[in-house]
């Protein structure tokens, strides 16, 4: 009897940990980052949205900005779309279909995992990217945090 109770408690705890871990993965804090030479220290969420939806290609005080995205099957990309771009993955795909097939731009390229993003930022002083906040280190400058 006690064994069964103890087994049930362990299962419940495991389940709770699993749920909380999944929830944490879905609710990652997102950092919009840039090279340390990037001319401004902060950026608004509106500006990030306009850049990543291809509605603007320059920032006031900066000029033309280069962008990189996360890989297409990335959970972080879906979360960025929901929190920053205010679009579901399906809506974002439909949005870019309209822009592509009217000749008004293509989605930002992706370069790979966070290490590849950091390497790209090091080579592009005019570039911005986003990543999970936990992957931010001294090689990049945080322009915006999104929780």
């Amino acid at each position, binding site marked *: 009897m006690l064994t069964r109770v103890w087994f049930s408690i362990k299962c419940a705890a495991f389940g709770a940990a699993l749920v909380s871990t999944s929830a944490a993965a879905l609710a990652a804090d997102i950092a919009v980052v840039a090279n340390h030479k990037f001319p401004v220290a902060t950026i608004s969420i509106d500006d990030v949205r306009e850049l990543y939806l291809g509605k603007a*290609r320059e920032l006031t005080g900066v000029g033309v900005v280069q962008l990189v995205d996360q890989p297409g099957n990335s959970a972080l990309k879906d979360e960025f779309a929901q929190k920053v771009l205010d679009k579901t993955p399906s809506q974002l795909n439909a949005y870019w*279909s*309209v822009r592509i097939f009217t000749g008004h731009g293509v989605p930002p390229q992706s370069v790979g995992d966070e290490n590849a993003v950091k390497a790209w930022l090091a080579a592009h002083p005019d570039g911005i990217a986003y990543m999970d906040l936990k992957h931010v280190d001294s090689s990049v400058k945080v322009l915006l945090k999104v929780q």
Partner: protein
Amino acid sequence: MKRTSRRIGCKAFVASASCISALVLASGAKADDQAPTWHGFFTSGVAFTDTNAGYNGGLTKRADIERLTHLGLNIQKNLSERWDFAAQIIADSNTVSPDWAFVSWYPIKGLTLRVGKQKAPMWLMSDHIDVGHTYPWIAPPEEVYSFNPIKRASGLGATYRLALGGGLEAVAEGLISANSTDTLTVTEGASKNSSFQVKLNYRRLGVINLALGNEAFQVRAGYTKAAVGIKTDFYQIKNLNAGFGTVGLKVDTHGFLLLSEYASNFGSVDKSEISEANANLIAAGTTSAMAGAKAAQTGSPADIQAAQTAGTAAEAAYLQDAAVHQMVGARGWYATTGYQVGPVLPFVTVAQTRNPGSNHIINYGSQDSASFGIKYDANPYTDLKVQGQHVWPKNGSRGIQDVSTTGSSYKQLNVFQAAVDVAF
């Protein structure tokens, strides 16, 4: 009138884009290190009605795959920080042809200028009307999208976007063209043999479109004006003063979808063109009737061929007459609403077109329709659609049905369609 293919001036297409690209690169502007990007779209499907009378350009009980099948290929390239090049070709069952090609320049924040062949931004879906993946229907409602022949033009386009904060934006988009041509292959009538080339010439074209809203809600209004010339092997209309006005609404939030547009013709045409069209219609109709009767009597191949030729000429004359009358006062609207549940979007559409223009023989273009459709997102790049539509012609008028060659009245009908759209 069903458009089955189109050709544009290849020389203008290549010359304008190549020249501007060369100027940009010669100016020493730094080219981006991105390679050109390729994308494409593909649609295939089947459509049929429950009647042998033709609808919307030859659609009958016979399953038609050709009208819903086409492939598009798109290339875009950053030429420099502020210059891009984009081009698209489209292929259907008959031809492969350039769709558009232009160079874009982004001189200041919010402003884009484009030179080259561009889609005219007249309605909500005009500039991506061939890309089924971008809207819920199998094709945009014909009550609005069928009565404007102006699809694309070579000229100068501009977009100015003003961010108002909180995701809200105001966008002004325009296109002007001094002189532009387009060629359509028209299939009109229940007979698949009735097809001919229509050469369109637009002069002094101006399009303006204003939009306000955000990703969830947008209102839009537009106006187009042009002097249009139409030439076929059977007739010529020298000068139609075309004018179209539109207002539209789009709501797409939390699964709820609402799309609605109202469009109206404000054009005018010389009385001499109307008189000529009336006379041509009477003459061609009489010739066709006599040739048809003779073919039915003799059954000879030569008489049958002559009847088919006369029939095509009669249908062309009908289009000529319809064109001069529909330039004044034709109007239409539709409203589509749906609710997305997971990957499935069921939606309903009601639509109406009215054309008070008529001659003493035919009452044009008035019909109501209601349709129900389902769009299923199989994956982010593929959707499947089915759609059923009921059409009510009003007061015996033709609506968007093809001209009756048997003299019978225009009746209610049902249209059934299914399609798959892929974007890659």
